[in-house]
């Protein structure tokens, strides 16, 4: 392989036949799709035809990394998982940080494609260019922490000798929002990718640490650009000092903190639940990802309140929001407890929290009774009730069986007023843990038009000046938001091709210079946008082929409702929703009436072969 940053090898694992094989990646394929979500999008399209359901053995589960993983770029241990996911029954793509992306390459592979279904629970081990499917029946029922412990013990290795990603009880029981969890608290969480893994009877994947086994084309240049990238990330936002929780109160200030399932935007306790409070009051220990100097993730010991002494991974912003204001909880220690519980069970925190917040609102309104909820008193803030309910969901016990379907399906089954309270997109996925009706319309719009089941175009709002685009002046402007989401679209999907962490790589231009230093390419910013847009369009064609409709690109009634109080009171995104869609479609080169990519758009992106599908 003459391109730096790659092994040029994909491992194919046929779980039905319990066979593994190795396939070579061609240089044109690598240049066209780069890695991560790019590889995932293309393989998914080529190997999962229309008619294949997410639960069919013929669905693929595609784990891929990219040129920066393991290259020495700080924090580059990321990998991407793509599949047809259960929440939308469309494409799903999600990234996890930690070590796996680097270790997979050190083990000899740029990616793994899982197909088929094992007859019993198995796990996969990859090491020194070889792979072995092993009996995993003894791991049945274990949570992800127990699974990591059991595998390290079985293999006789120390903590950092291997990277382990696994599913918990929820993935084994077919909860539709199960995540793939590993490296002590990192997750590929969106659109039930862990559910697909469970449907294949695959419990875990283990990759060994090793030495760098691929070329770096310009090592001195990489060193220089990597340092500059770190300095930028260090000074960008609150991450370095306060973690993602450092933005918690700022989000409250613009009406973006989800409070009690969007029934209010008032949460004065935010100052005792943000990253600043946590890092100045709780005991904190660093828990960095592979070669990361930003180390925005820590381990904490709770030092006050009912959960004093509890040790867990530091909740990130989304977990603070999900297990704090969204469920009416004001105790930060309880957030740490619930964060650990959700992760160990292998659930997606966002979908779980929207589901439980919905239950609590229904309970408050008398739509669901204690009897309906197996005797649980699900009043706002009852964190022990939430813990019990999470465990019921993870094993589909009692009311947990309905709630395991996610908030859209559960609310439709109850119907009536219950359906009006549920927060989701009409495709079936849910937003990250924000109230996007506040100053993040860009993210609300992105969440609804996404082809990946999570954010596609933006990064937590719009930060367009980093790539020489104008700043969005008014976050509540229908025109500015839909226009800038289209113009910005591409660079984030390019980022998700690379195998590095977004928090550690905050400057797209410096990140691109690192890519060029590793690979030996001379990609321009426009090239990077083009590659990202190719990925977006590839996923979109896959989705249309699998039944997506324009009507699905909308929020649910509650998700698109008007805030009744707080900083964004009376702001109404829905009054011009259809106009926003048509504007966005047009600027993306899609048919403004159907949202389908136009033939000339696909041609410009080198995707002529997809025209026949539309």
């Amino acid at each position, binding site marked *: 392989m003459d391109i730096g940053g790659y092994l040029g090898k994909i491992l194919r694992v046929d779980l039905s036949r319990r066979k593994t094989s190795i396939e070579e990646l061609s240089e044109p394929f690598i240049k066209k799709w780069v890695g991560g979500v790019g590889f995932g999008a293309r393989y998914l399209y080529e190997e999962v035809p229309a008619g294949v359901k997410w639960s069919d053995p013929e669905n693929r589960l595609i784990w891929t990394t990219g040129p920066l993983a393991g290259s020495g770029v700080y924090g580059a241990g990321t990998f991407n998982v793509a599949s047809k996911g259960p929440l939308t029954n469309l494409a799903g793509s999600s990234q996890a940080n930690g070590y796996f992306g680097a270790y997979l390459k050190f083990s000899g592979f740029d990616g793994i494609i899982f197909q088929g279904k094992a007859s019993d629970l198995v796990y996969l081990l990859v090491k020194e260019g070889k792979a072995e499917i092993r009996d995993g029946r003894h791991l049945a029922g274990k949570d992800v922490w127990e699974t990591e412990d059991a595998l390290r013990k079985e293999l006789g290795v120390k903590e950092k000798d291997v990277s382990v990603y696994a599913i918990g009880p929820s993935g084994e029981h077919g909860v539709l929002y199960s995540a793939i969890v590993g490296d002590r608290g990192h997750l590929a969480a969106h659109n039930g990718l862990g559910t697909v893994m469970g449907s294949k009877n695959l419990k875990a994947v283990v990759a060994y640490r090793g030495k760098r086994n691929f070329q770096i084309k310009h090592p001195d240049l990489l060193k220089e650009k990597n340092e500059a990238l770190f300095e930028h990330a260090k000074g960008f936002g609150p991450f370095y000092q306060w973690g993602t929780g450092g933005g918690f109160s*700022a989000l409250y200030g*613009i009406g973006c903190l989800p409070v009690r399932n969007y029934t209010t935007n008032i949460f004065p306790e935010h*100052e005792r639940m943000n990253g600043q*409070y946590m890092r100045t009051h709780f005991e904190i220990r660093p828990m960095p990802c592979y070669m990361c100097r930003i180390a925005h993730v820590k381990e904490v010991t709770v030092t006050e309140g009912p959960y004093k002494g509890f040790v867990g991974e530091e909740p990130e912003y989304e977990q603070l929001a999900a297990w704090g204001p969204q469920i009416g909880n004001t105790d930060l220690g309880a957030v740490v407890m619930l964060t650990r519980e959700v992760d160990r069970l292998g659930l997606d925190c966002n979908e779980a929290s929207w589901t439980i917040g919905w239950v609590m609102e229904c309970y408050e309104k008398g739509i669901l009774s204690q009897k309906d909820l197996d005797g649980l008193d699900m009043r706002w803030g009852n964190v022990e009730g939430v813990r019990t309910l999470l465990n019921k969901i993870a094993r589909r016990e009692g009311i947990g069986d309905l709630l395991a379907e996610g908030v859209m399906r559960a609310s439709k089954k109850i119907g009536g007023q219950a359906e009006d309270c549920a927060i989701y997109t009409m495709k079936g996925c849910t937003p990250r843990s924000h109230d996007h009706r506040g100053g993040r319309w860009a993210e609300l719009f992105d969440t609804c038009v996404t082809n990946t089941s999570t954010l596609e175009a933006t990064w937590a709002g719009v930060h367009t000046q980093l790539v020489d685009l104008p700043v969005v002046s008014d*976050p*509540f402007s229908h025109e500015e938001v839909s226009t800038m989401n289209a113009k910005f679209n591409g660079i984030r999907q390019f980022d998700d091709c690379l195998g590095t962490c*977004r928090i550690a790589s905050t400057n797209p231009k410096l990140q691109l210079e690192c890519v060029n230093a590793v690979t030996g390419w001379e990609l321009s910013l426009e090239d990077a946008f083009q590659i990202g847009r190719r990925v977006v369009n590839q996923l979109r064609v896959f989705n249309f082929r699998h039944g997506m409709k324009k009507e699905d690109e909308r929020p649910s009634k509650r998700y698109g409702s008007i805030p009744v109080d707080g900083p964004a*009171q009376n702001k109404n995104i829905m009054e011009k929703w259809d106009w926003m869609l048509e504007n966005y479609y047009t600027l993306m080169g899609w048919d403004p009436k159907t949202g389908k990519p136009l033939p000339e758009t696909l041609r410009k992106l080198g995707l002529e072969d997809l025209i026949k599908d539309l």
Partner: protein
Amino acid sequence: MNRVTIELWLWLGKELKGFESVTEMRSVKEESVEEGTTIRQLLDRLARSHPPIAEKVFDLTEKRVYPYVVINYNDRVISPYEVYDKVLKDGDKITILPMYVGG
């Protein structure tokens, strides 16, 4: 003269003379402004008297806040198209927030 309150969240508070840190993350100052003073004029005045505000909040050359800054008016997010020319009334409150990425 009108009395207005300026509140800074999450940053700068301890670096600014005349601001009182009411909590670990909020700093507050009351200011007297003449009748007819706009928010832009107030921010301009604050930036001139407090160099960190000129460095991180209000661009004295462009006469507008930097891209990562949000201004709330009486606890409401307000469109930047309206905010600058808003004439301050007695008892008004201006909150200056960072627009953080991530999370």
